[in-house]
């Protein structure tokens, strides 16, 4: 022993047995010694933490195999357990409590071997304390918890599975007794967590008393009298209960019972604010006509349980309804051994029904409720709405892709509710429903949801209040749902405004409703997801406005300096970090708006980069980490590595056409103005213009093409532009066979006819020349133009097999002759355009048509 006491340092195994003995001596009250408990029991947490840090009960160490040491440790643990067991058998309930708690810790900490040899003794010992002779609440609760720990440990040993199952079976009756006969809420809570452990690890043990357990839990929930936490724990147990049978029918039956019970409660609660027809409708979905009604939940008629609650007060049975809905959520999102058939339609109908009730009276109804009743109901409604949104989320999670047949319905419910939803909490939840939908359903859903998400996010993010001053807690808390407050939107004055009037900057924003930052975070997050999922598809209409909105939001969020993510010791958690969350969310969304696929280079890239650079300097914060990541991922955007796949994009097609997108009025006159003298300069400027608009991708491409352009000289330009023209037309009407016709049609619509009279015929000529003779020809000599024309042709007139045969069969000679042909047409065009420019320098634009007439002639002559 003496040798063992001389250990080297705190890591030395030799230190452990004496340390344990020391603990026993100092902290454990002796069973027969009347010692003042109060002083020692406050030390218990310390005792436990020492036990856990040094692993004093583990009895094994990888470094040491010294048998002497092992024996010493073993005997110390023996002493420890002896001490605990004597405490357990003490008459004094406080000592008993200490023993029970520490036995629970021992179950978690002791070695496998010790656990396996003695768990049944411990279990019997603990079991005796939840049965009748014991009357102390604390002891009962502690026993439940320790038993639960014991079972948790026991479940890890597969070799004793059978024994464990039968032992677990012994627990059911006492637990039921606790639930049924005890009348202290805290004890039920303990019993519920024990039940939860039992169902999770030893589902088979409950099988025989399934109905009794259901009845016991249901009666508690239906009475609706207890704290939310207790009810939730019980509800979770109820939701897991079908696992003990593990078949398809018990799950469905439980779900049906719960839904019927919710509906019955709602029928009663919503009398007077809802049309009678709703009741029948809900019922019809739940119970197929001609089939038997299942026995009510837990054997009670659901209203029987709740009725005494209602007679005493006029409030809604909110607690019961919300617990039952929580049950549904858990049933939908917990694993189950077999496939189940979920009554999706009735759940969705329930959600819709709840979300529709807003406390207003239907026009056809006579006032049935007193105003007091209505006020009470309105105060409780937000809770119910929040739970129905939770339920919706659970449905989306549980159904995954199989929600598809119902997705249109869900979207309609969500968008309709978005229009009326005014409370911050509910809006936040609604945004999270949106995110769930986007995530689980993908691109197709994004196309559908985009308009609504954008509208709402716009109005939430544009309201100035939240950015300019701190939100007061009163603003975030659930407010009463006033019927007059129903129509959210700007312009309506709300009571909460006065509170914030004190803040300096609010003067001008008084007419706007404020949006709490938490709602803004939800809105920004939803926009981010919308961009990542659906930016590619049909986003042209909203993309630019969203990009600028996100930039503004990010700048606003960052202009006050950086939020502190670490919690301030003096403040409760949320307000301290909410600003940092907002910054992070808005920067994330900004990054998404840069990275999401778009047709143009992100317009606000430079401002964004600056924000990220500044953010990165705040070393050590999540924000800086994110900004670093953002800068890293934007690098690819600035230096693209992939070649453009798009052969037909007008912007990449040729400079003229690229410019035409931006300056539609000048396109054609611009191309006409060029003559051989001005060409190189003009080309350069045009390239310059493009450079500023498009990214390096384009320049790279252009470099390859430059040679080709030089070869073609200026004459190739009208040629190119006309081809581009054809392309655009053919895109719109791919079935068209005759490109000329369409070109004319388009020109007439888009550009002023007078000015264009000239280029049209010319390009027509060239196109037709190409189409007749030189399809592959353009290809060989002129790298750039060749690719283009080939593409265009295959796109514009639908190629048939013969065309392709010709294409593949064409030989070099053919190419050459055709090439010569085209080039012979080119000088003429050149002439025409140069003569035109001469004239242009003297006369006004009106003179164009005169010159132009000559152009087609020369062309046709050459042919």
């Amino acid at each position, binding site marked *: 022993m003496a040798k063992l006491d001389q250990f080297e340092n705190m890591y030395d195994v030799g230190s452990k047995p004496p340390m344990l003995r020391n603990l026993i001596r100092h902290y454990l009250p002796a069973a027969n010694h009347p010692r003042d408990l109060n002083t020692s029991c406050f030390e218990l947490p310390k005792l436990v933490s020492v036990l856990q840090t040094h692993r004093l009960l583990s009895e094994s160490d990888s470094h040491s195999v010294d048998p002497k040491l092992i024996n010493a440790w073993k005997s110390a643990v023996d002493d420890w357990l002896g001490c605990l067991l004597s405490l357990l058998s003490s008459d004094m309930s406080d000592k008993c409590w200490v023993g029970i708690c520490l036995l629970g810790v021992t179950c978690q900490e002791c070695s496998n071997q010790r656990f396996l040899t003695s768990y049944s003794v411990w279990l019997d010992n603990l079991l005796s304390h939840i049965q009748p002779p014991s009357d102390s609440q604390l002891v009962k609760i502690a026993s439940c918890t320790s038993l639960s720990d014991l079972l948790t440990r026991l479940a890890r040993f597969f070799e004793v599975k059978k024994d464990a199952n039968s032992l677990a079976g012994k627990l059911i009756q006492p637990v039921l007794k606790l639930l049924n006969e005890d009348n202290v809420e805290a004890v039920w809570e303990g019993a519920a967590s024990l039940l939860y452990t039992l169902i999770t690890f030893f589902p088979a043990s409950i099988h025989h008393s399934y109905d009794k357990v259901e009845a016991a839990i249901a009666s508690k929930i239906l009475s609706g009298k207890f704290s939310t936490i207790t009810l939730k724990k019980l509800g979770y147990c109820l939701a897991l209960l079908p696992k003990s049978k593990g078949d398809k029918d018990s799950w469905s039956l439980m779900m049906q019972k719960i839904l019927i019970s919710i509906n019955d409660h709602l029928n009663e609660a919503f009398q007077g604010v809802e049309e009678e027809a709703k009741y029948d409708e809900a019922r019809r979905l739940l119970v197929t006509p001609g089939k038997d009604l299942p026995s009510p939940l837990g054997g009670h008629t659901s209203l029987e349980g709740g009725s005494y609650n209602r007679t005493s007060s006029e409030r809604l049975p909110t607690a019961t309804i919300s617990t039952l809905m929580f049950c549904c959520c858990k049933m939908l999102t917990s*694993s189950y051994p077999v496939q189940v058939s979920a009554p999706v339609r009735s759940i969705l109908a329930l959600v819709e029904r709840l979300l529709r009730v807003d406390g207003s009276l239907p026009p056809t109804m006579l006032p049935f409720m007193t105003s007091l009743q209505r006020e009470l109901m309105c105060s409780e409604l937000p809770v119910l709405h929040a739970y129905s949104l939770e339920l919706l989320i659970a449905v989306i999670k549980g159904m995954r892709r199989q929600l598809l047949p119902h997705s249109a319905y869900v979207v309609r419910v969500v968008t309709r509710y978005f229009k009326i939803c005014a409370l911050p909490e509910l809006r936040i939840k609604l945004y999270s429903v949106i995110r769930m939908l986007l995530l689980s359903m993908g691109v197709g859903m994004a196309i559908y949801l985009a308009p609504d998400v954008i509208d709402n996010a716009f109005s939430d993010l544009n309201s100035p209040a939240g950015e300019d001053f701190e939100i007061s807690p009163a603003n975030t808390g659930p407010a009463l749902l006033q019927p007059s407050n129903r129509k959210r939107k700007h312009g309506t004055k709300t009571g909460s405004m006065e509170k914030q009037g004190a803040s300096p900057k609010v003067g001008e924003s008084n007419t706007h409703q404020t949006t709490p930052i938490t709602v803004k975070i939800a809105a920004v997050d939803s926009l981010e997801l919308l961009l990542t999922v659906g930016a590619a598809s049909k986003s042209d209409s909203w993309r630019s406005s969203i990009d600028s909105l996100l930039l503004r939001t990010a700048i606003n969020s960052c202009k006050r300096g950086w939020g502190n993510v670490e919690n301030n010791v003096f403040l409760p958690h949320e307000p301290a970090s909410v600003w940092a969350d907002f910054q992070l969310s808005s920067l994330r969304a900004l990054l998404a708006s840069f990275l999401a696929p778009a047709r143009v280079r992100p317009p606000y890239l430079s401002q964004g980069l600056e924000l990220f650079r500044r953010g990165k300097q705040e070393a050590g914060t999540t924000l800086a980490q994110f900004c670093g990541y953002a800068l890293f991922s934007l690098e690819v955007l600035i230096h693209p590595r992939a070649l453009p796949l798009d052969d037909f994009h007008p912007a990449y097609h040729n400079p003229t056409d690229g410019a035409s997108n931006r300056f539609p009025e000048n396109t054609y006159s611009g191309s006409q103005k060029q003559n051989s003298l001005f060409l190189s300069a003009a080309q350069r400027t045009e390239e310059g213009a493009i450079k500023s608009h498009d990214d390096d991708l384009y320049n790279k491409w252009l470099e390859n093409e430059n040679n080709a352009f030089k070869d073609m000289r200026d004459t190739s330009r009208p040629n190119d532009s006309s081809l581009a023209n054809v392309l655009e037309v053919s895109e719109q009407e791919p079935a068209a066979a005759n490109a000329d016709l369409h070109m004319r049609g388009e020109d007439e619509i888009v550009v002023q006819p007078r000015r264009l009279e000239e280029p049209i015929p010319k390009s027509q000529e060239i196109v037709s020349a190409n189409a007749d003779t030189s399809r592959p020809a353009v290809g060989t000599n002129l790298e750039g133009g060749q690719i283009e024309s080939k593409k265009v042709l295959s796109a514009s007139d639908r190629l048939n097999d013969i065309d392709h045969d010709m294409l593949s069969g064409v030989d070099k000679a053919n190419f050459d002759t055709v090439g010569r042909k085209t080039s012979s047409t080119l000088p003429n065009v050149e002439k025409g355009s140069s003569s035109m420019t001469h004239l242009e320098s003297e006369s006004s634009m009106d003179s164009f048509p005169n010159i132009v007439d000559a152009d087609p002639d020369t062309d046709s002559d050459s042919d």
Partner: protein
Amino acid sequence: MNVVIASSSIDGGIGCWDLQTGAEQLRYKTCASPPHGLASIGSSFLACSQLRDPSATSGHVLYWSWSKPQAQVKSFPAEPIKPIAANSEGSYIVGGGSSGDIYFWEVATGRLLKKWHAHYRAVTCLVFSEDDSLLISGSEDGCVRVWSLFMIFDDVRQQQASHLYEYSFTEHTLRVTDIAMGYGGGNAIIVSASEDRTCKVWSLSRGRLLRNVVFPSIIDAIAIDSGEHVFYAGGRDGKIYIAALNAESSPSNNYGLHIIGSLTDQRPVTCMAYSAEGNLLLSGSEDGMIRVWDMKTKNIVRMFRHSKGPVNNILIVRLSYPLNRSESKVQASSRRHEFSLHPPLEKYANSSDEDIDNKTIITLPDTIDLPSYLSSQLINDHIKQLQQQGSSAAAEMEVKRLKLDGQRSMEMFQQLKKVYDNLQEFCVNELLDGQPMDGSKGN
């Protein structure tokens, strides 16, 4: 474990090989499939459409469980179904009919949820998008169409919209032979091959043609390299062409624009599959062989012999459990995918049974939410409670309450005392009054 499954247009069954070791697994019997007719339904079982007689007015669809060689479920759709496809979860099967209709079935119930007229001629191939929200179909009339499944199921929007499809690509002039979809959700590319000797690359986000590649021969099969560097096109001339997507291509080469090179197979290539794991390309050809190409070295690394006839379907399926011959093991480990439960696909959409209509058979998510040890937390909680009871605030309240109690008791005491005093006074008076009377009597 990755397995290769393949079927042929003449009855050679469905061959199944381990891609890594090359070992042949079970051969699933009696299967003669049309191109694109073989599908693995969420890796839980195999389905294949059957077409024995081209002139027959009905075909059928067979299911095989992974563990049994015999087909287990036989469905008879209303018309011959050639291509079939399933979403990644395996909850839905779509089939393309020879009339141009697309059928949409729910696997768990076999119900025909939707049927719509998609093309003028027979549907030749069907592909789900990465996120299962879009369906791309190709047809004999040369048309490639993109369907949003939400639109298909949204009756209200359908009435507002002029057409059901999202995009309709009509640039192909002849039968579409294969479709492959790239990566990137809404921004993905679609590559389609047609008998008009072209492969066309479409942009899903812009809904238009991006690139047209003309090949020397008809392309029957395409596969996209997972980095979308290139795509592979298997031609009837026995060559597998490598065409550029994001790769550089020099314009001067033997085959044509965008075609970078080729691998030479002797026989016409009828189907292909690409395995990102190991960068392997699998090609099936008319001589019944499946060749595995290492795309790095461009060499054949393995060959599987399937049958004498042309192989027209190859799939690579990732299985979560090994395909052992001992069936009990397989069944135990695949309990979640209870095969025998799946009913055959229904012929017509009938919504007579409203109860079934309202319900959906789902596999609940596999969340792990286990209890943890609570004792030490409980000790802290209880101690905190006890301390709070002993704290000054609690004590103050307690004192107030006790004071109030004391006050009330005092009042009670005063009242009782008063009653007692009254009573005593009364009794004393009675006694005093009575005594003189007694005394007077006595006197």
